[in-house]
């Protein structure tokens, strides 16, 4: 429906979500979360592509006749993005299915970015996949004012509010309920918890600590621009999800943040990968190269 209303401009993200959502609030056993996600994703993708009604006999849900209406406008369905926190399995999944890989910078890109994107790169290499920055999405909290001093003064309290009261108030054991994280992943994070960056300190983190870790990029347009350009180039990021409202930030400041970001920062980001790569994970109407079907991407890869 959204694809129709927007005339083929839908980009679809499929996050597994936090344990609070599926497990605590909705009673799904943590060890079933992933399997249910996988099953439901297949159901959605099949419903988009099948031309006739079909029966779906899943382990978790059964439908005698799946028949969605209206159908998506985009010929091969809206682009699919999967959100990961660093689990190599999720990266392999995105690469093998040619889905976009989306990563959230809440834990501090200066602490986690190098690890996560190097891991993605080496997995792509192992799998023989050509790396395309447009397959990577990155969500970053951003705060722009005229000067660094002003940015700290007007955004500082709202930034602290957001990180302390939102992510920082979820105890670590609630983020990883038993059964929700694969045993190999558990061993990995217990050996080396650095993928979680600032998570353990977030509840009491100060503005300065949050800025130093990269949880937020905050300052004058020049400060913000320089950091974002360096980060996108360095990590090979082709899609930036700029989070310009956070926590208690009121409407007027949010609008100001959006204005300054879009007029003084964004123009420097747009050209970064222009002309070097095709964007297969973006609607054609917005300049993407035909939301390549999985088969098509495989054909292209085979030809290379």
């Amino acid at each position, binding site marked *: 429906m959204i694809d129709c209303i927007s005339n083929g401009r839908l980009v679809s993200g499929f996050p597994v979500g936090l344990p609070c959502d599926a497990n605590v609030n909705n009673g799904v056993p943590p*060890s079933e979360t992933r399997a249910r996600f996988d099953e439901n994703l297949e159901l959605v993708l099949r419903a988009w592509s099948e031309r006739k009604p079909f029966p779906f006999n899943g382990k978790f849900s059964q439908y005698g006749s799946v028949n969605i209406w209206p159908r998506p406008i985009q010929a091969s369905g809206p682009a699919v993005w999967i959100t990961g926190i660093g689990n190599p399995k999720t990266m392999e999944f995105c690469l093998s299915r040619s889905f976009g890989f989306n990563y959230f910078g809440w834990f501090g890109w200066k602490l986690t970015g190098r690890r996560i994107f190097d891991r993605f790169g080496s997995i792509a290499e192992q799998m023989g996949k050509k790396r395309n920055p447009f397959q990577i999405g990155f969500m970053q909290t951003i705060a722009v004012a005229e000067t660094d001093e002003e940015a700290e003064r007007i955004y500082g309290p709202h930034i602290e509010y957001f990180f302390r009261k939102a992510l920082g108030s979820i105890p670590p*054991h609630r983020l990883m*309920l038993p059964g929700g994280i694969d*045993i190999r992943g*558990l061993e990995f994070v*217990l050996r080396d918890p650095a993928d979680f960056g600032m998570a353990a300190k977030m509840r009491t983190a100060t503005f300065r600590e949050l800025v130093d870790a990269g949880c937020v990029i905050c300052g004058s347009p020049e400060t913000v621009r320089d950091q974002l350009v360096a980060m996108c180039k360095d990590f090979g990021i082709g899609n930036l999800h700029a989070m310009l409202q956070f926590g208690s930030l009121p409407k007027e400041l949010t609008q100001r943040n959006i204005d300054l970001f879009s007029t003084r920062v964004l123009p420097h980001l747009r050209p970064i990968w222009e002309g070097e790569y095709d964007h297969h994970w973006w609607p054609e109407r917005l300049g993407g190269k035909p939301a390549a079907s999985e088969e098509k991407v495989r054909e292209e890869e085979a030809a290379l």
Partner: protein
Amino acid sequence: MSSMIVENLKVPAWGGLVTINVQVKGQGPDLIYFHPAAGMAWDPFLDELARSYRVHAPEFPGTTPGNPYDIHKVDCLPDAVLIYEEAIRALGLKQPLAIGQSFGGMIALELASSYPDIFSRLIVLDPIGLWKPSHPVTNWIEAAPADLPKILFKDPASSAAQAMLAVPDDPETAVLATAQLIWNLGATGKFVWPIPEKGLSKRLHRVKAPVLIVWGEDDALISSAYAADLGRQIAGSRVEIVKDCGHIPQVEKHDDTMAIVRPFLAA
């Protein structure tokens, strides 16, 4: 001495999809032990039983180190009950004695309800499986690790509790043990999330074996208020409350529990 070495038997079940590892130790009449949610571990209670009985301890699918993904082959509690019944038959056990602790107590009661002739006598130690709105069962699966000792023990500082809670000194061994423990809680938790009550109460009238219900008086995970309820629902059962004791009486009050358990098994 050889009888005090643990043998690991690999028992195929569920049409070959699942392999149940059964730890076996001791000499004497057959006894089957159903471990709690955290997985199988030998403790002084089981070691002492192994001096008089041949103790068979099947590991719940997914909780065997090196074989974590068997849990994905078990979709629901009735599947687990069938798998255990297959394993018991494959082991050739004929009406063994049975003991189940906590989650394992629920499994044992499910088996005794589904197959009334499967056990000769059954002891359950602080079993889960029932629900009283007046005494909600503590959700141990989502508890903070730091809170677990006081959920499990009346006196977490006691030497018995400390021995059970000890983390290995070697960092890599500790990582593997902790990951396995968390995984085990997830694997067993699949069948009791988010409320550990899956209709056992409806089935208990089918139990035929003599049942001894042992409960730590100060159990903070599932209140000893459940003991009498469970006793009422199983005809001919007996309830014993262990004083000054939490959720794991055989560890926290080893001697007292042994004094209750031994005569019942020998009867």
